[in-house]
């Protein structure tokens, strides 16, 4: 068949654009805390800390100054320590849940009592991402953290679980 190549190329361009279009329509970019529950089927959740889309961001950008104020009132580290466990967040490659310890209005510690990963690559990713996520949470004192690049799903799940724990304590 002559001009067979044209049919293939036309089909390819159409298929390419259609899928990208379909993808853009069905996927809603989420901010990290609201990326929430599923991790499955919600298509993309591009790494989005509140307000920032800088492609050059890499590791923990801790130096605040981006996005809204990590609010809380005049914090005091005094007061009884309270703990709450966050919901188990399933993120496709596994699931995790965090437990947060709070003193007054400050997060003092985050632990990950529940961590089940499906495969070794995810275990490797989790092993380097979780400590960084913890450090970032402590630094900004909320669940609105930057995701770790290369560990998007893990970060989303971590933040979502942390947020649900904070909600239980009626903290921001």
């Amino acid at each position, binding site marked *: 068949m002559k001009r067979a190549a044209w049919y293939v190329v036309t089909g390819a361009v159409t298929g390419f*654009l259609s*899928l990208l279009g379909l993808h853009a329509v069905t996927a809603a970019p989420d901010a990290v805390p609201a990326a929430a529950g599923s991790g499955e089927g919600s298509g993309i959740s591009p790494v989005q800390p509140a307000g920032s889309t800088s492609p050059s961001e890499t590791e923990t950008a801790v130096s605040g100054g981006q996005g809204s104020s990590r609010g809380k009132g005049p914090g005091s580290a005094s007061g009884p320590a309270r703990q709450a466990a966050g919901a188990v967040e399933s993120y496709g490659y596994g699931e995790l849940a965090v437990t947060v310890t709070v003193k007054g209005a400050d997060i003092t510690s985050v632990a990950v009592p529940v961590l089940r990963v499906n495969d070794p690559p995810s275990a490797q990713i989790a092993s380097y991402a979780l400590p960084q996520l913890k450090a970032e949470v402590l630094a900004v004192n909320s669940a609105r953290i930057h995701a770790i690049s290369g560990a998007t799903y893990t970060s989303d799940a971590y933040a979502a679980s942390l947020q649900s724990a904070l909600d239980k304590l009626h903290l921001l």
Partner: protein
Amino acid sequence: MMAQPVSAPGTHLPARAEPPRPRPAAAKAALLLAGAGLGAIIALGMADQPFSQLSAPGGELTFLGNLTALAGTYLALIMVLLISRIPAVERVLGQDGLVRWHKWLAPWPISLLIAHALLTTSGYAQAARTGAWHEAWAMLTQFPDVLLAAVGLGVMCAVGLVSIRAIRQRLSRETWWMIHLCMYLALALSFAHVIALGPSFVGHPLTRVVWSAFWAATAGLVLSYRFGLPVVRSLRHRLVVTEVRQEGPGVVSVICTGRALDALPVAGGQFFCWRFLARGLWWQAHPYSLSALPRPPYLRLTVKAVGGHSASLARLRPGTKVLVEGPYGAFTRQSRHHQRVLLVAGGIGVTALRSLLEDLPPSARPAVVLRVSRPEDLIFRDEIRDLAARRRGTVHEITGPRDSAVLDGPALSRLVPDLASRDVFVCGPQGFVASIVSVAKSLGVPDEAIHHEAFAL
């Protein structure tokens, strides 16, 4: 009883199943769909890819590894579909054309999948901050289904390797074929690791469903048309060798009888893959054209002894059972764009043209050119003259060694002045066919009016 392929005037021919019309739209739709799938799968690899992830350790390599995996696997499935002999597509594009595309496409999926293995291993190694060999070992021993996929990739490489001409020439056709068939195994082994590990699939149930459906559809088509239909046909028609007849030096006709041949939808010019159930021949299926339309209960194929298989056909014993795959080929009267035709036969290529000639209506006014080296190679001379005369056509016989009486532009247009308004059907050895095709093009015959079948392994 001898088969009498040439009918006398007034003879009532038993009614035959009319072969289905080729519909170019079906083939065009298939090409569009194949292209769309390729575009979509590349888009799939690029969507879901936040740019921040690329700058993570191993991010770029893993991204490319994913992209090459998707494209390579998709093309591998297209390769399978190309030789799955789907009737609606085969009728338009022809089995020989599809096999040509299959050969042309072959290096791509293999190269992409090798690249995928290397890129993904390196990318994971960087992310895990270990050496590549260490990471490869970890992947093979710990990651789900990766070992199976690695075996599959190895088989795929072996298949690719033995198809390189230099190596293939040293192998017997049976050995090469057995290795080649292992490609199905290679694909099956690789399926699981994609679903378990592919970032486009993990956490994306819809993508998994569509991907699995594509695999299932491919498997279904192969099982139905590549394997199932030929078995059903063979069982239905129960072909048996009746007679082997000498037609000329080194050329024999094999007459077969079968049941219900009036229901076999053959068009003149088509071929079957023949599997003769005799010692030494039963594991091979070779393509040979019919040299006459079926005359129930008889089928005739005519073969020149050029290789081991074709030479052994002369020694076939009557009563030998035959399994067939087909009919295949777009070398038929239904592919014509014009009414009138020019048939050019080189050597043994006359067999396909003989059955095509029989199938042509009188309005085709066929011009027939027979090009042979020696006069004794002019097989079916009388049959062809008779059939052409009934259709008010002309026959030109050109005899002589290859370098004399060359059929070039001037020679051909002298023989057939109205060449540009005819469909040209040319059949014979590869070099001959290529030369006539280019001569026809240079004389103004449009591409779609040139039909060729080259006899090659």
